[in-house]
């Protein structure tokens, strides 16, 4: 039921904002002291606290922050003195396309590999595919990223080694994201292929697969028409989790490729005690995760008629 799900979605967002606010507020360290340095005079610190609104009671600060977020005003960064909303928006422009590209790549690789392994279960093709998946999971992806840079940027000079030129030149921007997307996609594709294989193998053992074969469908038809869709539920669950991870968990790859992504922003903001940025950036991430979970739920219902109307 869509109305109920939407209400739950809103509730989850409000709850998450409260938790984030509470956690950030509890972190030791006074932002005003951080800005002015530890040697600052107490009255200067007090003046800055007043200017930043830190002297107000917490319910007022929470309401101000939440109201600001809803109107697109997330305050001003303590470290950079620029509007936080603009900073986050700049970073999302890198992280979101990167995550989507990585995910699309992972699916494009995992789908045929998983299907092949499941249909050739126990044969050399299966062993080879799952062996490769094992390697894909085990390889540190920053190492793989550097390998990609060495081959495709340094040696072959097909793609840039790092940096992000901005979306004013879309082609250049896309080219800058290709290698990082591959580096991010490798382990995800490996995980996805393994999940798909085991889900498919379980599905292929079901009675309705035997019924479909008795109708005259070939092994390949049964795999495509009956098994794949039934195996999709666990795959969707993993996909949702992977997307959330890719959005902010790409920090190592962002560092390797000098990409100004969300992960780096949050990491820097935390080390600089730039709590205004941390607070809002984390909220944006949490909102994205909740939204993806919501979309995955809708996808479940689209795939499985038994889940509709609940």
């Amino acid at each position: 039921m869509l109305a109920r799900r939407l209400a739950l979605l809103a509730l989850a967002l409000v709850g998450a904002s409260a938790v984030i606010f509470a956690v950030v507020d509890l972190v030791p360290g006074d932002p005003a002291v951080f800005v002015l340095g530890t040697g600052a005079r107490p009255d200067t610190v007090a003046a800055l606290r007043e200017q930043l609104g830190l002297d107000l009671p917490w319910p007022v600060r929470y309401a101000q922050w939440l109201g600001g977020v809803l109107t697109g005003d997330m305050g001003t960064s303590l470290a950079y003195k620029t509007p936080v909303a603009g900073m986050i928006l700049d970073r999302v422009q890198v992280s979101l396309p990167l995550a989507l590209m990585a995910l699309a790549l992972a699916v494009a690789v995992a789908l045929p590999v998983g299907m092949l392994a499941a249909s050739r279960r126990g044969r050399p093709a299966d062993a080879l595919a799952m062996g490769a998946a094992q390697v894909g999971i085990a390889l540190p992806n920053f190492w793989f990223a550097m390998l990609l840079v060495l081959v495709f940027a340094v040696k072959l000079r097909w793609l840039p080694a790092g940096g992000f030129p901005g979306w004013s030149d879309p082609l250049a921007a896309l080219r800058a994201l290709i290698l990082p997307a591959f580096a991010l996609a490798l382990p995800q594709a490996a995980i996805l292929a393994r999940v798909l294989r085991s889900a498919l193998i379980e599905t292929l053992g079901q009675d309705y697969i035997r019924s479909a074969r008795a109708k005259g469908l070939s092994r390949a038809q049964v795999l495509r028409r009956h098994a794949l869709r039934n195996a999709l539920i666990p795959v969707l669950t993993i996909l949702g989790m992977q997307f959330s991870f890719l959005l902010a968990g790409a920090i190592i790859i962002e560092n390797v490729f000098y990409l100004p992504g969300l992960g780096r922003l949050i990491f820097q903001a935390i080390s600089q005690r730039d709590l205004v940025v941390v607070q809002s950036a984390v909220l944006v991430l949490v909102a994205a995760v909740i939204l993806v979970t919501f979309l995955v739920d809708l996808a479940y219902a689209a795939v499985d008629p038994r889940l509709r109307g609940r």
Partner: protein
Amino acid sequence: MIALRDLSITIAGRRVVSDVTLPLAPGQVTALVGESGSGKSMTALAAIGLLPEGAHASGRVDLDGRNLLDLPERGMDALRGRRMGMIFQEPMTALNPLMTIGDQVAEGLRRHRGLGRAQALARARERLDRVGLPAARFPLGLYPHQLSGGQRQRVAIAMAIAAAPDLLIADEPTTALDVTTQAQILDLLRGLVRDEGMALWLITHDLAVVSGVADHVAVMQQGRIVEAGPTAQVFRAQAHPYTRALFAAARHVPPASPARAPGPPLLRVAEALREYRLPRPAPFARRPVLRAVDGVSLTIAEGESVGLVGESGCGKSTLARAILGLDALQGGAIRLDGAGVGPRMPKDQRAQVQAVFQDPFASFDPRWRVDRLVAEPFHLTGRPADWRDRVAEALAEVEIGTEAMSRHIHEFSGGQRQRIAIARALIIRPRLILLDEAVSALDVQVRARVLDLLARLRRQHGLAWLFISHDLSVVRAITDRVLVMDAGRIVEEGPTGRILSQPLHPVTRRLVAAAPILPPA
């Protein structure tokens, strides 16, 4: 015509089916009977080319002068569904849950007849009408979960006969269904054979079903056909000792307990009411309520054996859960020996009632060893120091040796598992045992031995039991009194012999009429 000649099957070098010759004549019903594990299903799967990996068939499966065993997989794919179809035992899982019934029936037509989607769906509609699922109540867009077990089996039949095959193989098609649904499905199958002239190959362990339906019968024992011929003749002659043994087991009645005056009441159910709230039909609508148990009252005396029968969905299992104290009632009361029964009853009260369920495998933890499994109910009474001796004793009572204690449940046969389940129920000496379809999954010979065991245990321990089943022959054999349930109510009750021979209520009459009968010896 399709015929098997000298068909043998080996699995990993071991021969499981030997030299089976079986003609399957058009317009006729040919039954293959035997106990589970005798190789019946393997024979059928070999004929349709769907043997599991590692199994190998040799000999001949003749169709139009060709040996199907020589065909490559692609060739068999083209025949399956077009020349022969197959339905299976378990209708609940036989259909793809994510596909509409219309698409599932149409799929074979599109594959074999090259029909477009619209044409195939129109033909699927005809086939669904033919199997008794009319358009008004069963539109093509329904999904399997919206249908009952019997309705799903009808869809499976429609799917198998969509392309009008010469042969329909039905592997235990009614074993998972209640008696009235079983009778309807058997009627439908017989009608299809008559009207469409196809051959029906019926695989079953139930001799009574065979006697009502089949023109020819072949009896299979350990992978060999030991006796075959026209049904009436085979049933009359019973030339082979194994055939005689099967009949004897099917007719088996355990020695009656000495008649005695019923003891004081042990279990009293008074006006029990159990409702389920269903999902809202529309947003903000009130949730409809299903009254699964609707004012049931019954009494079981100490040492009494009571049967509870009814069609699936009549509320038997819901009532059983309430008597076990697993679910709370919305009205009425259940008292055992004067004390209330419910989810929060004390452990010593719970220890008075134990249960044995239909599927012995599903009711055991596969990772535990038998000694721990059988000792499980001790958590209600506290585990005595001599618990291992008590486990050995309980196993001895069900004729299972002590060496079983250190083994896992998958190492036992269906009959042995059910004995172990009974040992588990007995170990804390309950006063009432609830047997929910406890012998339905067992072969006739095993069933006969388990029924004897139950009768002996009842004599020795003065146990009372409530025997829930859709199998009237078993209820007749081992209960003193029977309750008939329909739509959440008890509609008739009385001495078992009288109720089953002179049923008064329409539901009881329907059940008795639907129950397949063995011809008299």
